[in-house]
């Protein structure tokens, strides 16, 4: 990262695309001669204008997104591979670039409990966790969507214990797929930054009012450094608007109410009241599908950066067979598709970005023209002896009455590489499946590595 500190002013870099690009200031830089506060404010404003891009990993990009979203309160507890994200947040708060209360809680259970109180008091909130931290957070994590409290929480995805592992995999996020949070999985560092900002818009939409997990792959995205374009603060402010988190449920002396009283049971209005809230939650999840789509479109209009909101189709228009991927593996998957296309194999790829709510219609439409599909997961569904994304895709195809051979491929567990070679093998197997009509048992891609 280039260092153009506030005391030096912005240093112009060569013109790119007709626009003058200026170097970004590092999060943790130390300013030797600290100017007077008034001068400091002017300099920070100049610096903010100058900061058009960063060269950083997704943990740092996520922290910048939090600052751009003008989050009121963050509560954090570090855990690999999320730890540096917490450190970046703390540095942004310490340097005044993120004007938020930061709570270093004693554990993840307290982290989310603190933020629920803050949200009920009206704050826009953020945290990040993964793996064992997410497990320790589970009790308030279960409660959050039922309270219909919007927030954004990054899961820097990590494989779960045991066997002991500190590396990437989707097992943690996938293990909480039925809790009722919205889950979006990112492919690139840029997508992480943009999606966190989009996620606030989705979470706080009155037809949704749900918490959102923005998942980015541990190691590959969390520590993979690349160029990231930063949106202008004015654009983000206009995109997100002023938060109104607690219009429906509040800790507010001026609006006395009990939040989350005992509901349900077998007697009186209990059964129908409980069902009403469950159905409301399901409706919020379904509403999210169109809100996510609209929010991505508006983001593209304002920033010029477009990401597929629900599923992305890559070279599927004339495809005979398709791969389905999720998360950062998609890059290698697309490369493998290109290589196979060069050999004359008509293969396409469908990336699932929004995983919860599951975009059944979009997946069915994306796979409508193919003869066979292979789904690649970075996690395991122990109940079905396949990948969880495969379960969902198979369910969607069955729901639509589409008969086609399909198979589950599992790879990239606990930090294992998913390379173009692995995807090449998947494409070969799926092509064979299309020709023979015969599917097979789950394939473990790193089994012989």
């Amino acid at each position, binding site marked *: 990262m280039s260092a153009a500190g506030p005391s030096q002013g912005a240093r112009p870099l060569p013109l790119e695309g007709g626009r003058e690009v200026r170097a970004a200031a590092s999060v943790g830089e130390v300013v030797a001669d600290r100017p007077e506060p008034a001068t400091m404010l002017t300099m920070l404003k100049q610096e903010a204008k100058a900061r058009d891009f960063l060269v950083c990993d997704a943990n740092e990009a996520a922290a910048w997104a939090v600052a751009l979203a003008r989050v009121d309160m963050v509560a954090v507890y570090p855990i690999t591979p999320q730890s540096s994200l917490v450190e970046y947040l703390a540095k942004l708060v310490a340097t005044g670039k993120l004007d938020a209360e930061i709570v270093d809680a004693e554990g993840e259970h307290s982290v989310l409990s603190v933020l629920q109180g803050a949200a009920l008091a009206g704050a826009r909130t953020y945290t990040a966790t993964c793996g064992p931290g997410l497990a320790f957070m589970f009790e308030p994590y279960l409660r959050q969507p*039922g*309270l*219909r*409290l919007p927030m954004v929480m990054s899961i820097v995805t990590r494989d779960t214990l045991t066997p002991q592992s500190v590396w990437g995999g989707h097992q943690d996020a996938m293990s909480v797929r039925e809790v009722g949070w919205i889950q979006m999985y990112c492919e690139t560092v840029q997508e992480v930054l943009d999606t966190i900002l989009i996620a606030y818009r989705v979470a706080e939409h009155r037809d949704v*009012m749900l918490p959102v997990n923005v998942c980015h792959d541990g190691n590959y995205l969390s520590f993979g450094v690349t160029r990231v374009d930063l949106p202008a603060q004015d654009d983000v402010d206009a995109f997100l608007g002023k938060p109104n988190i607690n*219009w*429906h*449920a509040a800790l507010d*002396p*001026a*609006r*006395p*109410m*009990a*939040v*989350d*009283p005992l*509901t349900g049971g077998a007697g009186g209005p209990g059964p129908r*009241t409980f069902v*009403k*809230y469950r*159905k*409301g939650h399901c*409706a*919020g999840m379904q509403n999210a599908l169109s809100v996510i789509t609209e929010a991505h479109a508006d983001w593209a209009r304002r920033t010029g950066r477009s990401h597929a909101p629900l599923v992305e189709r890559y070279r599927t228009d004339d495809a005979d067979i398709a791969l389905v991927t999720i998360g950062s593996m998609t890059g290698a998957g697309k490369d493998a598709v290109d290589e196979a296309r060069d050999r004359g194999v008509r293969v396409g790829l469908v990336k699932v970005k929004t995983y919860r709510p599951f975009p059944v219609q979009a997946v069915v439409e994306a796979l409508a023209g193919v003869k066979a599909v292979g789904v690649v997961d970075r996690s395991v569904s122990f109940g079905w002896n396949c990948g969880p994304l495969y379960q969902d895709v198979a369910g969607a195809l069955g729901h639509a009455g589409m008969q086609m051979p399909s198979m589950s491929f599992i790879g990239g567990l606990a930090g294992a590489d998913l390379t173009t070679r692995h995807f090449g093998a998947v494409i070969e197997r799926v092509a064979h499946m299309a020709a023979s009509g015969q599917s097979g048992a789950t394939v473990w891609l790193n089994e012989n590595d």
Partner: protein
Amino acid sequence: MKRQSYPIFDASGVPDDLCPIENRPNPMLPGEWRSMKPVVDRAKCVKCAVCWLYCPVQCVVERRAWFDIDYATCKGCGICATECPHRAIAMVEEAA
């Protein structure tokens, strides 16, 4: 005594299938779930106020010569009987 500082929150503008909230005071009082009730022996009570101090629901009522219990709000936890230094409070089973 004024029991409500602010007007009751009007929840009519909030959808009733979002977060469960309650804006009406619950008419149920803790006395309804009591199985044992504390009974004060006036002859033994010296008004030391230990029961008054310890009662978690603040249902101990001061009389001129002794402390009594408000049975509408007493949930029968028995802390007063345990803490009374003069053994002036007995826990008596409620009639069915």
